[in-house]
């Protein structure tokens, strides 16, 4: 109804009364109010509570007092720096791998699938409608010690390489870095493929033809035309992969070992089992700030502003 306010304005002209103008001005705020109120109360306010909690002292029985004690941050980092940096490292590796795997897939769907485009797109997304946890448990089955995947890796000698790179322990894949990264990469592929596909699909094929006509070699055409034009998708895809991967702890819990613990596991344990809220809040808030800063730097360097 009033969502259309701008459409009739052209035809109704002078008939517009001042009352209608007033209503029109209020309309966007009325539309925004319930949704934005929800986000303020249940997203923004909790962030403030988290920040405040991280600077408090006390325990769950006697209650907490805000002491502006930065010691929580110092001790949290002293104790959990390895898990923190490991999370960013695993998320980074997984993001690069999802890009390397996802780009050819998005490219093939966008340019080479013809009338199967929609079917293929569905086939790429649909697997991820099966529960995240169930699929991650399936990786336990796939990577099991005497499974065909592990035997194959052993037979072609890749296992030896992985062992040299300390990606696996004692030739066992399950419960290793390799398994955690495999799971992370797998679980976040659709977050990479969909934005990539969206930006590749929008590319005007005539631009590539023009590059070819101007004697650009195929690889040059890709590097100078296709890749730059797909940058919005690359930026969105890498962000949508990196951010959840850095906070994820399902993969590292189900597929890893104590040496692959990620920061999410620590936050979960500190909040829900140790009940050390200030330490947990300090870790959680730092993760948030780290990611926001990384995202801002990255987006600025990649030069893409319109993300939403």
């Amino acid at each position, binding site marked *: 109804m*009033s969502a259309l306010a701008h459409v009739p304005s052209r035809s109704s002209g002078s008939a517009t009364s001042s009352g209608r103008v007033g209503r029109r001005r209020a309309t*966007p705020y009325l*539309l925004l109010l319930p949704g934005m109120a929800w986000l303020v109360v249940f*997203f923004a306010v909790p962030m403030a509570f988290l920040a405040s909690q991280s600077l408090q002292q006390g325990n769950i029985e006697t209650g907490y007092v805000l002491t502006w004690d930065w010691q929580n941050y110092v001790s949290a980092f002293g104790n959990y720096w390895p898990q923190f940096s490991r999370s960013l490292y695993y998320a980074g590796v997984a993001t690069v791998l999802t890009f390397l795997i996802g780009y050819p*897939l998005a*490219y093939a769907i966008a340019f080479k699938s013809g009338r199967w485009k929609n079917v293929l797109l569905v086939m790429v997304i649909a697997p991820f409608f099966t529960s995240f946890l169930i699929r991650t448990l399936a990786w336990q089955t796939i990577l099991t010690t005497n499974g065909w995947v592990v035997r194959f890796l052993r037979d072609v000698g890749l296992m030896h390489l992985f062992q040299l790179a300390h990606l696996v322990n004692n030739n066992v894949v399950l419960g290793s870095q390799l398994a955690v990264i495999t799971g992370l990469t797998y679980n976040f*592929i659709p977050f990479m493929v969909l934005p990539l596909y969206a930006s590749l699909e929008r590319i005007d094929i005539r631009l590539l033809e023009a590059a070819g006509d101007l004697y650009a070699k195929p690889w040059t055409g890709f590097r100078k035309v296709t890749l730059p034009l797909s940058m919005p998708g690359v930026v969105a895809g890498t962000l949508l992969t990196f951010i959840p991967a850095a906070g994820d702890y399902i993969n590292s819990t189900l597929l890893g070992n104590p040496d692959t613990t990620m920061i999410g596991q620590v936050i979960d344990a500190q909040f829900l089992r140790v009940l050390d809220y200030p330490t*947990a809040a300090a870790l959680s808030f730092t993760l948030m700030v780290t990611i926001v800063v990384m995202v801002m730097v990255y987006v600025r360097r990649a030069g893409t502003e319109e993300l939403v």
Partner: protein
Amino acid sequence: MAATTTVASATRPAPPRRRRKSPLAWTREHIVSLAAAAAFLYIMLPNIVVIVFSFNLPNGRYNYAWTRFSLNAWLHPCADPAMCQALGLSLKIGVAATVIATALGTLVAFALARHRFRGRAMTNLLIFMPMATPEVVMGSSLLTLFVNLRLALGATTILIAHIMFCLSFVVVTVKARVQSLDPRLEQAAMDLYANETQTFWRVTLPLVAPGIAAAALLSFSLSFDDYIITNFNSSPSSVTFPMYVWGAAQRGTPVQINVIGTLMFIIAIGAVAVGQLVGRRRRGA
């Protein structure tokens, strides 16, 4: 590099074939398709395992190694009543979160797509932030809110959290659809003496409906599948399906979990296929 071999072959007229290509040349030419096929296999592998192992009859408590074929789990899906109870709770929360998040998010999407107002940048930021925040941070911050307000954790707090993280995705999905509408369609309705209300209900809304449906489907799957945020905001008496699966991973995985996983896969493909068919028929009409 070969990404481009294919571009070239698609865009330039193919040179007349002179001799049979060597396998190496063939691989070079099709390397993008081969890489895509490998990626596809990687994506499908866990689902294939889930489906195959739903027909397993394992010896121990864990359904990790293939033992022998059985329809047992399919015939007795609720052998563990706790699982079906958890499934019921997840469905209820999923439907409620979807309805509320879709309604609120659609309103916001219309405001952003159709109106100018002060505070647009702040609004965009507030919508973008939940998508750019790791789940563990959102879950733990909500927990500190609920603990500080002394709100009892349970199904209600889970629902509040799910609506929160579904909202942004609804806004983005519906907004894209509203922005892609051809304004001339609405102008035509107005020219034909439809008033604003009629135009909205009979032209705008039907045109935006596919976007709203997609947003609702996305919301439901996000809510139904969420473990991390839910884990921070639930109580032992409010166990959702993902939480049940997590617990099962520690004490023994019933085969029935794979039955549910298989059903979810089939329903998802079915839902999208129906959507495609409806879309095609509309376009054809």
